[in-house]
């Protein structure tokens, strides 16, 4: 039986790598998508860079002091960057990527922050940073220590700063697992059923579970190859800080395996009864795309409504992402991710049980 399992798994693996489309989706597409996302969104969580120009009474003592404060604030602010330019470098009055700080000539006049109110997020964020810095600076100049009015405290000291590189690398890895575990498994089973291959398998002297298990195990191997490729490219190709050779990676491995098993069970369930490949692909697409878009994998769900946020808790791929990122990126312990792990385990057991019980070998 072991020999049969080995031969079937080997054949499945060979076949997978002989199909150019499979290789593309498992190995090339994740790297390609990572490249595109990093080009589009950058590495860090920064909204981007804006030009900041100082005008008006720039030589006044308050202006000098405020300018120093502003430069210090931007040096430690990660969500938006500033490039300090002269008025000449800022461009004309109609330049839309610049924020101008106009210092007043009279002490009691307000400083003005001039920018395009319909400009981009970076422009709006920079103007707010400038506003806070100037208020604090003026308060200090008027004898009120700003720290006595308000101060910022970091509530997330355990977590690493948000990094788009990490976000995309881990999210795309899970997406690749979805392609391998759901799409190719469902279509693979559908093809075998449509071509009546299962009919002859049923006549073979081997447990039917061996066929399914060999198909699933070969895909686990492919998932691991896909994950290794993507993470190595992310780490050494794009310089994304991923702890590949640290304990965190080792602790993240069981989560990857559980997630892989969960997605394979999902694929098996989707294909368990479909009479044709077209029917199975329809069910697969109806499942795959909502999971992809609502799992915080490649599209950050920052603006999701509260009522929807509760629903995310039962989405298997969302919890896969939460658990994997928590362990790999934030170095969390398994206890801290008990709920996501339990959710994934439940989905795996339910899908595998239903998938195997409902599994139809022939189109009866």
């Amino acid at each position, binding site marked *: 039986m072991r020999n049969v399992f080995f031969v079937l798994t080997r*054949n499945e693996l060979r076949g997978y790598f002989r199909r150019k489309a499979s290789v593309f989706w498992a190995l090339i597409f994740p790297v390609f998508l990572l490249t595109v996302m990093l080009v589009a969104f950058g590495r860090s969580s920064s909204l981007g860079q804006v030009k900041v120009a100082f005008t008006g009474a720039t030589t006044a003592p308050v202006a000098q002091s405020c300018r120093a404060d502003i430069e210090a604030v931007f040096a430690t602010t990660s969500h938006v960057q500033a490039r300090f330019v002269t008025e000449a470098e800022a461009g004309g009055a109609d330049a839309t990527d610049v924020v101008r700080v106009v210092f007043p000539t009279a002490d009691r006049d307000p400083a003005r922050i001039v920018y395009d109110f319909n400009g981009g997020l970076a422009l709006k964020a920079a103007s707010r940073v400038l506003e806070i810095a100037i208020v604090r600076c003026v308060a200090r100049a008027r004898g009120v220590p700003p720290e006595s009015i308000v101060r910022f405290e970091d509530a997330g000291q355990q977590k690493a700063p948000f990094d788009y590189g990490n976000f995309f690398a881990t999210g795309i890895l899970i997406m690749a697992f979805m392609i391998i575990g759901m799409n190719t498994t469902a279509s693979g089973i559908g093809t075998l059923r449509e071509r009546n291959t299962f009919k002859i398998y*049923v006549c073979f002297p081997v447990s039917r579970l061996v066929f399914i298990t060999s198909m699933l195990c070969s895909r686990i191997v492919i998932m691991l190859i896909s994950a290794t490729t993507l993470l190595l490219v992310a780490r050494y190709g794009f310089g994304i800080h991923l702890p590949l050779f640290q304990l965190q990676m080792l602790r993240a491995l069981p989560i990857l395996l559980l997630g892989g098993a969960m997605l394979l069970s999902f694929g098996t369930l989707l294909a368990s009864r479909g009479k044709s490949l077209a029917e199975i692909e329809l069910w697969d697409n109806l499942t795959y795309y909502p999971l992809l878009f609502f799992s915080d994998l490649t599209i950050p769900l920052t603006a999701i409504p509260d009522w929807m946020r509760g629903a995310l808790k039962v989405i298997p791929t969302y919890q896969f992402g939460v658990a994997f990122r928590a362990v790999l990126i934030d170095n969390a312990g398994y206890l801290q991710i008990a709920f996501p792990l339990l959710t994934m385990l439940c989905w795996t057991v339910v899908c595998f049980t239903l998938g195997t019980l409902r599994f139809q070998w*022939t189109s009866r």
Partner: protein
Amino acid sequence: MNALAKPALSAAHETAAVSADRIALRAGDFSFEVAEVAFRAGAWTAIVGPNGSGKTTLVEALLGFRAARMDNVRILGVPGARFMADTAQLRRLGAQLQRVEYADWLRVDEIVDVHRALYRRQSPIVAGALGLDELAKKPYDGLSKGQRQRLDLFVAMAHEPELLILDEPFTGLDKTYAGRVLELLTGALRGATVIMICHAGEELAAASDVLWVHQGGVKYQGSRAALKDRLVGRYRTLIHVESPAQEAELRGRLAADRSVLRVIAGREPLQIEAYGGEGLDAVVRALMDSAHLRHFELAPATDSDLLRICTQAGAITGAIDA
């Protein structure tokens, strides 16, 4: 079920390799029902019948591929469902089914590897007869229809099973390989029970038994020779007529003669085919004079003739009820 076939069938049921007391299934507007079916152990049974009559349905129902109501199905002495679920029992079975395809990306030698791992033995005689070596490195999607058929037959026969189920085994094979398969079945695999859906006279000629499926049921089950005697006798004549009126007249006269077993339309317009025993020659010669026949052919009836009768829907009622 044909009354003539029933006593023999009941006797065969005791020693049958595959049997069922009842099979009933419905799929859309097609239904299939048979009260009793048995395939003799060690015999070669050809399943014949028109397209869409239920031949493949019968075989697939016995193997459990179709949702059907079945009573007391037994395969090689074991209840059917248990046989199909028991890997030790399944080693005794070899099956070649129609419209079954392996994954395109597999190579032939990889499928052969699976077979070797499954059965732990492969007959070099079967491999040699089917020319497997020359196919070994070919991708499955690069095989012709005949090459795929050779591979399917290898998978079915290479472990020398006790029970062989073959669905049109000669389809796509050239004469050389068809001959080799026949040699295998009568040589290296002699003694195996063969259940074969057939559509060619050569296939039928090699069978000892026939199961005739028609209109969703079994019309006859028993000896091929007996059925041949009953349906086509020893001789066949092909008569060319000159007008529809002459055709009608001659058909009436032939049908009335006791030595004529069957009269059917020929393959071409204005042709009549008649089958009968020793007296057929004399009948036709008499018609030459009385009906002014100009052209007729007389030859021994063959298994192809028998198959043709069995697969012609219009001839069937007359054939059995006669």
